[in-house]
């Protein structure tokens, strides 16, 4: 009798333990980002998940990647239904601020200050997720710089040098054009591609203040002279025949811009440094004759020649305010930003926004990119990342108008300014 009782007790205790273990094991953290199979960083994420799960068996992480453009729609729909995932990725800046304002995002300031986790990150990277003095996301992937890539062999063949000023630049364009090349490869169906020229031009002409004052409403305006001139310069380049024919219909996502480089038709390509990784993958042979230079300056311009367009942090990860697993989520993000992850990211050609990554760099091309970023006095964050989505869309809408000359520079600048006024009046 006693024996059977103890057996019952043992069995039921065993069952209880089993049940509670399985109950713990069912704690699931949902992670949404854009690291699909297409992204080289996927193994880093997967490895961090595996390491986290091994150390914290009571949690499983469900990683749900979605491709870039659709990701935004999907996240927005989920937010609308109050069903945001525990951890989600954004690009910081204006769009993240919308989520913060709507009370969707956990304030990570305390967690960052604990154990000096904050020291792990390059400050500029955290800055794009700081609103009213609090931090709402941590940067995981690459510092990014937009650079003017060019084919060294074509430059040599035509006999042109790297241009320092805009006047030189125009000269190079004319000579390349005369030699039968498309001077600047660009696929502008996507609009953010053409926006890179606009952002650089505004910076070079009006300095970083031109944009910052307009965006932060510190007495600046998107219709001010720097913006109008930037539009005029773009149209001047269009008139010179600098861009590929059909530029507004070409698709960057399908690589129609890089195809022109591969086919020896185009000589220069203004693009984020990720282009290096893509080309390494698509046409490694071309890299032998491939390099980059900084965007030319204007003699009467206010911009610092070292300024870059880019982003001090790529994918930013936030924790949802509604998450029931905030602590574990933070813990996981620590795995995602540790030494192991940093080394893996650098090996993939990604300049992770962590302190000390330069030690791992050995690819000379990446060291050059790193130095350009490090020596930049200011990195102009992409407009569509900095601005609230409504204004960002208005900006992007004008880009095709400028390149296609269906809009005057004044009209384009005015359109963005009007949208900005509308947006800020409503706030």
């Amino acid at each position, binding site marked *: 009798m006693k024996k059977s009782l103890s057996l019952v007790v043992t069995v039921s205790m065993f069952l209880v333990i089993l049940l509670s273990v399985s109950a713990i094991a069912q704690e699931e953290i949902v992670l949404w980002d854009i690291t*699909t*199979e297409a992204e080289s960083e996927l193994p880093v994420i997967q490895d961090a998940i595996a390491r986290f799960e091994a150390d914290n068996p009571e949690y499983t992480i469900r990683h749900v990647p979605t*491709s870039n453009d659709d990701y935004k729609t999907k996240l927005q729909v989920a937010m609308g239904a109050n*069903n945001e995932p525990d951890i989600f990725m954004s690009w910081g800046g204006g769009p993240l601020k919308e989520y913060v304002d709507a009370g969707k995002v956990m304030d990570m300031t305390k967690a960052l200050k604990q154990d000096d986790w904050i020291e792990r990150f390059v400050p500029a990277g955290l800055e794009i997720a700081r609103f009213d003095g609090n931090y709402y996301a941590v940067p995981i992937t690459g510092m990014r710089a937009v650079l003017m890539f060019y084919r060294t062999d074509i430059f040599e063949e035509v006999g042109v040098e790297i241009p320092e000023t805009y006047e030189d630049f125009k000269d190079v364009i004319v000579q390349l054009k005369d030699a039968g090349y498309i001077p600047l490869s660009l696929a502008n169906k996507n609009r953010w591609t053409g926006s890179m020229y606009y952002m650089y031009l505004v910076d070079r002409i009006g300095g970083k203040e031109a944009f910052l004052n307009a965006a932060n409403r510190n007495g600046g305006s998107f219709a001010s002279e720097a913006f109008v001139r930037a539009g005029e310069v773009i149209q001047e380049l269009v008139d010179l025949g600098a861009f590929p024919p059909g530029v507004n219909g070409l698709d960057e996502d399908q690589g129609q811009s890089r*195809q022109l480089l591969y086919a020896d038709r185009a000589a220069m390509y203004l693009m984020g440094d990720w282009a290096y990784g893509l080309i390494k993958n*698509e046409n490694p042979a071309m890299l032998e004759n491939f390099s980059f230079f900084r965007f030319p300056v204007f003699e009467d311009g206010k911009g610092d020649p070292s300024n870059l367009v880019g982003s001090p942090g790529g994918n930013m990860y936030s924790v949802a305010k509604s998450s029931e697993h905030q602590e574990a989520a933070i813990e996981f993000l620590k795995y995602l930003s540790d030494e192991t992850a940093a080394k893996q990211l650098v090996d993939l050609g990604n300049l992770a926004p962590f302190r000390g990554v330069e030690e791992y760099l050995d690819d000379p091309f990446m060291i050059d990119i790193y130095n350009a970023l490090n020596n930049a006095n200011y990195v102009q964050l992409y407009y569509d990342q900095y601005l609230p989505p409504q204004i960002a869309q208005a900006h992007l809408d004008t880009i095709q108008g400028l390149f296609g000359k269906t809009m005057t520079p004044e009209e384009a600048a005015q359109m963005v300014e009007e949208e900005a006024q509308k947006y800020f009046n409503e706030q």
Partner: protein
Amino acid sequence: MSKTAKIIVILLAGIWLLITLYPFIFMLQTSMKTNMEYFTTSVWAFPENISLDNYLTAMNSGFIRFYLNSLFVTITSLVIIIISASMAAYMIAKIDFKLSNSVFSFFLAGMMIPIHITLIPVYRMTQTMGLYDKLTGLIGPYVAFSLPISIFILTGFIAEIPRELEEAAYIDGANIFQIFTKIIFPLIKPAVSTVAIYNLVLLWNEFIYALVLISNPDKWNLTLGLWNFQGQYGTNVPMVMTGVMLSVLPLLLFYIFLQEKVIKGMTAGAVKG
């Protein structure tokens, strides 16, 4: 037929053949090239080697799973569409009741609803019902957006069935359920196949609901899979074309083998209404 007329007809047939067929030949031959070959040779050129490597790579990136997922959702939805639409169409077409016309217009109005506006409400509902990220969660919206056109086609067809048939059965003591299952349903099979084929093509290729309601890659349907595949291979045009070929293949085979039936079904189903 006069000679000129004959020439015009043959010319038209030929041109249209070229317009529909050549893109496929282009896809097929491109899908067998390597990426470098695509950039360096003319688009007209045949592949240097007939190789199925691209197809193997693509199949290994999950296409089989996408097929099965699409198949499950499509078939389940079709069954529900056919049953519920034919039941409703029967009432609308054959039974006199006060609201008959209003019910019909109510369904027809559904054809004018842009589905994107339903996304957020549908997402919330799916969430509440616990069907988010489940293949079964797609069935509701799929059935709902297919109903208007299905009822439209079926009602027209059922209305043409002579009343005597039903009345004879009624006199023999059959009730309405029996009349529906034994008399009406067998007679409308051609229209049902029209409905089935029309919706099959739509559902097999559906994208936006799947995007919003499914997140786990294990549950991706074919279009989500293809979309992701296209992102993955970006500038590798031959690989992208391989993905496109693979997405069309099942329906293409289905159509080639069942062509006669398809046309016959459409023949009977399409004219009425």
